[in-house]
């Protein structure tokens, strides 16, 4: 196959679109970690639940936009229940316990989707408004993937405004700096943590519904995604939102470029990237060195 400049450019945009989903996933993971120091091992499972719930609502209403709004709410509500009744009793008992619990939870969620929707998964399709492709000047590019990039930008912007410009955001940032002081100042930290866990899982659900048209929706779809979002988080730096975005895009680009030049190594490449980052800069691009000891 002849590799032309325009093909490389197209593949670059494909990588950015893929990276957008990675960035979203890592943002959800980072948000929860930054605040609660909990690694959500069920993050991939929440992503998968988002994919299923999204397709379910789409089938029910025939409206993609409706599903796009409703799915994160449903998955976020599930996250609220999980934090309140399963994760909360584990605070103060060591960082490994919430991680172990959410790993067990991911098994339950996978089976729950198998029971509800069958083991085959659901067929997914691109919403009618976003079918077809656009001419980017160097080639035609699927509309839906451009939409992915756009949607991620909107979410990132909204989250940034929320964290930087609102009172709640201020409390969240203060809480992740020093929860103890926040408590002393009269902030109900437990409620803030609940909310953050809810937002984090809602974003996982949103990335699930966004990714659904680009991949097969089945109960196992979250399993590799969890490992990939760990790569993004480690590369970007745990708990850092800019890190999540930059590393997400980088991982997406590395993946799509390797699939162009050396397809056998595509899956491998992003993990090797992480190994290199670990060697050179163990705390990740934007990570605080303190976290790593």
């Amino acid at each position: 196959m002849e590799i032309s400049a325009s093909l490389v450019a197209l593949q670059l945009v494909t990588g950015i679109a893929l990276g957008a989903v990675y960035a979203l996933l890592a943002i959800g993971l980072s948000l929860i970690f930054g605040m609660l120091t909990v690694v959500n091992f069920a993050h991939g499972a929440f992503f998968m639940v988002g994919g299923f719930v999204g397709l379910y609502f789409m089938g029910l209403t025939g409206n993609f936009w409706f599903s796009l709004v409703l799915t994160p709410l449903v998955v976020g509500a599930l996250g609220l229940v999980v934090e309140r009744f399963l994760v909360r009793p584990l605070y103060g008992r060591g960082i490994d316990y919430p991680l172990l619990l959410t790993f067990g939870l991911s098994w339950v969620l996978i089976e729950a989707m198998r029971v509800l929707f069958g083991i085959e998964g659901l067929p997914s399709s691109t919403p009618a408004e976003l079918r077809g492709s656009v001419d980017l000047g160097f080639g035609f590019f699927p509309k839906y993937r451009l939409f992915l990039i756009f949607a991620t930008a909107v979410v990132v912007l909204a989250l940034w405004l929320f964290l930087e410009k609102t009172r709640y955001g201020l409390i969240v940032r203060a809480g992740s700096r020093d929860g103890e002081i926040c408590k002393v100042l009269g902030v109900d930290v437990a409620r803030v943590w609940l909310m953050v866990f809810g937002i984090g899982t809602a974003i996982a659900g949103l990335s699930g519904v966004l990714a659904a048209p680009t991949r097969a929706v089945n109960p196992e779809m979250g399993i590799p995604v969890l490992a990939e979002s760990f790569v993004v988080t480690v590369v970007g730096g745990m708990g850092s939102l800019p890190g999540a975005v930059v590393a997400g895009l980088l991982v997406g680009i590395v993946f799509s470029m390797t699939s162009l030049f050396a397809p056998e190594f595509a899956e491998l490449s992003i993990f090797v990237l992480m190994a290199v980052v670990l060697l050179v800069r163990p705390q990740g691009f934007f990570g605080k060195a303190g976290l790593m000891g």
Partner: protein
Amino acid sequence: MTSSGMSSRGMTGGLRAAVEAVRRHRVAAVLLFLLVFPLLMPYQALAINILIFGLFAVGFNLLFGYTGLLSFGHAAFLGVGSYLTGIGMVHMGLPWGLALALGVACAGLAGLVIGYLAIRTRGIYFSMVTLALAQIVYYAFYKAERWTGGENGLRGIQVPGFELAGFRFDFLDPTTKYYVILAFVAAALWFVSRVLASPFGAVIEAVRENEKRAAACGYDVARTKLLVFVLSALICGLAGALRALHLSVVPIDSLHYLLSGQAVMMCLLGGMGTFFGPFVGAGVFLTLEDVMTTLTSHWMAVVGAVFMVFVLYFPAGLWGSLLRQVDRRLERAG
């Protein structure tokens, strides 16, 4: 009154002596149990599975239970042990004993490389990084189809019958297979017990309890961690090598992080940081899976839920909780 008091004191005395004996001769006690274990199980294949996964969990426990490092990448070592044993026999024509040694050695080497990278991080990071690094091994073996059979797994590992000390061992007979594998497990358990009882064993527990203090006492924490990581990988590699001989195939799932998660689950269900706990955990996990699959195809939900209950309410695990109960009783008796 007096007589019942006397008899209860006699009972605690007996209990104390028994507990003391089991603690002192832990390897012998575990082996005694494992020797009669197949008689208690409905069929030998399950007993062999529990034996192998028990050893896998023991290797994992060395790192998680005793050193306090939660690795989510130990499937890599089980898988490398399995695959290299299989490759040694199928592609290189090695006798099974040599292939087994190759598998274990390569698992140790994988442990050295992954461990070297992973111990640069700590806490939650360590879990994520080991998981991701182990996925490198997964994809590498997945793609190296010529050697590993790719998605279909590696097939055709046959252990011929052999003669030793005048006895003929037929590996196709499940009971013989169980006891041959048990011989390797016994050696590994003795080795682990020696490590734990050595001064080095005290250092790794010191690292778990307080890393900074261990460093302040002059111990090289990073090297200690790396050494435990490699030892742990060797044990898990042996479990993998034995599994290849047992199954005569190596499924690609052997390398997947879900299997690492199973080691975590078994270790916690049984009791992390206890010598026998991993076997209890492996036994409960695999028996639960075995029973559940006959009742429902959704056994993962049941196992996942049981695991969550343990994390929330019994973090010491079955065996660990039992040990605590016994200790408490002895303490109360004075």
